């Protein structure tokens, strides 16, 4: 006690042995070096993003026109005519159908995990396997649909949509489950106490409470799926003309970027940048809407 009292200094003044200058130079320099390194790492992540965005906008913007977005793809990619219309249509059809397949099933799966299975062995296994499935490379998912669907039918938009749906499913399940978990148990208990069946409680009370979070998670999954290239290359085939049907060869924006990027002609490179800008705009708009929904209608965490 007395020792402490003796060391007391006038108010507002730091004792000499606790001032920053009393830290040895080596320790102070190390601290500063680390601080600079941490700032530098942030810069190292920002620079590539800025560069990619710059090139996509600078090189892609001059390509964008109604003609470019709707016209057929030229048979010879070296020609500066035509556009990427079939790819825009293909991306919308395949991503749309994949969403229609994966989101309802994924939400149902999340309902099983959070409302029925909870912590039992099967639910824990499904949860772990959904995480593992998230890590399955998209090219392997493409090979799966190729061997399971295309070999017995044909390369088609339907096969592409199935591949994208398989990639979306685990993402939708896990993000929806997180959102269902945020719904307060009092809501469930109140509904059950009023005599509602469990399925009615889930459909009319739990789901509406979590719907904004589920929607935003699903939109992020859609954005990811729209940019997938490898599975589409394997299972969808290729076409130069717009194909609104689910059967027969189709194409998509990522595939056109990939194909045109490998051609040595300036016209092809330009087309690739134009398609890249179109794709990035679609993906970022979807992501942005997802974030807006998440921020605007978030469940109030208690």
């Amino acid at each position, binding site marked *: 006690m007395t020792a402490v009292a003796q060391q007391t200094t006038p108010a507002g003044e730091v004792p000499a042995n606790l001032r920053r200058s009393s830290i040895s130079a080596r320790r102070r320099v190390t601290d500063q070096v680390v*601080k600079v390194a941490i700032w530098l790492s942030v810069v190292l992540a920002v620079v*590539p993003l800025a560069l990619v965005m710059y090139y*996509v906008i600078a090189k892609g913007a001059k390509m964008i026109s109604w003609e470019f977005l709707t016209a057929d793809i030229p048979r010879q990619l070296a020609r500066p005519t035509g556009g990427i219309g079939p790819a825009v249509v293909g991306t919308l059809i395949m991503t749309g159908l994949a969403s229609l397949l994966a989101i309802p099933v994924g939400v149902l799966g999340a309902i099983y995990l959070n409302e029925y299975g909870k912590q039992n062995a099967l639910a824990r296994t499904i949860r772990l*396997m959904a995480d593992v499935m998230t*890590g399955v490379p998209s*090219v392997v998912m493409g090979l799966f649909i190729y061997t*399971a669907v295309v070999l017995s039918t044909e390369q088609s938009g339907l096969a592409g949509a199935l591949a994208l749906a398989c990639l979306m*499913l685990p993402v939708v399940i896990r993000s929806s489950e997180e959102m269902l978990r945020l719904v307060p148990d009092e809501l469930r208990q109140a509904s059950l106490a009023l005599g509602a069946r469990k399925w009615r409680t889930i459909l009319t009370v739990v789901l509406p409470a979590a719907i904004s979070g589920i929607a935003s998670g699903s939109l992020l999954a859609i954005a990811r799926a729209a940019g997938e290239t490898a599975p589409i290359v394997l299972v969808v085939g290729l076409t130069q003309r717009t194909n609104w049907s689910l059967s027969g060869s189709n194409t998509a924006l990522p595939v056109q970027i990939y194909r045109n990027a490998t051609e040595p002609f300036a016209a092809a490179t330009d087309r690739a*940048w134009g398609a890249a800008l179109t794709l990035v705009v679609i993906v970022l708009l979807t992501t942005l809407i997802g974030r807006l929904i998440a921020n605007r209608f978030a469940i109030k965490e208690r």
Partner: protein
Amino acid sequence: MTQTTERRVPRLNARGHGAASDRAFNGLSLGAGLLVLAILALILITTTREAWPAINYAGLDFITRKDWIPLEVAGAGPVYGALSFVYGTAVVSFLALIFAVPVSIGIALFLTELAPRRLRSTVTTIIDLLASIPSVVFGLWGIIVVGPALVNVYDAIHGALGGIPVIGRLFGEPVSTGRGFMTAGIIVAIMIIPIITSITREVFATVPEADKHAALALGATRWEMIKGAVFPHSFGGVVGAIMLGLGRAMGETIAVALVIGAATQVTPNLFASGNALASVIALNFGDPGVPPGRSALIALGVLLFAITIIVNYGARLVVRRAEIRMKGAAA
């Protein structure tokens, strides 16, 4: 009379009216959950079945030889040796981790320990943006901008370090297009930074404030606090995050296909062209050579599937174990 009163009393037992719909909904949601297990099993079954002819044909050559000749040359049948692709996948993933891990840990530390509140959400948005850019766009940027731009840098490094024995062999003559292991590693690194960062950040955020305050109160500088309180506490979680990044890096297909240069070779030269398991499937699937060429490409997919499943499964176990431990510490 008694009958009417009986009717008015609501049935409160679970077996009454509507129990069937309850069971049906339970079954439906269970089915959706089981679909995950079914798809994973089907992936394994259908791909292995289609890969079998090639695996049967190539035998042990598949993992021990480094030549991939999907044509009949001078009467000799095709050769399927995946070793050079396994090597390419390993080199590209390793380079990507070397670049991405320090940057990701740095950003995670920035977000949890260093950033002013305003900057925190900005940097988070930037990382989210980085994650949402499709990989093919990074590939396009890599093949047209990054590759050609880096050739001069590679040349300079080759000139400076190429003469040193042993280490110099890593920095050999670069390819004129810049397409090779190093460029692929850099592009993949950019793509896995978001996933490693987001998990590492979550792990760092679980370090108890009391531990950090205790370190600072003992006179530690901020770095000493990070080294002494943050790192030991989050080691397991960070390892898991790195493994998840590794899984993503190994499965990355299109961006790698565009920038790796498509050469079948095993070379220590990091500036040389090569190929990886995932990229060779995408590059050659349209033109797989004589039968069983396509089957052989599917066999590469099975190999890739097996490797990524093991890495991801391990990563999830590590992350989960770390989570349980950290929750225990926080309580």
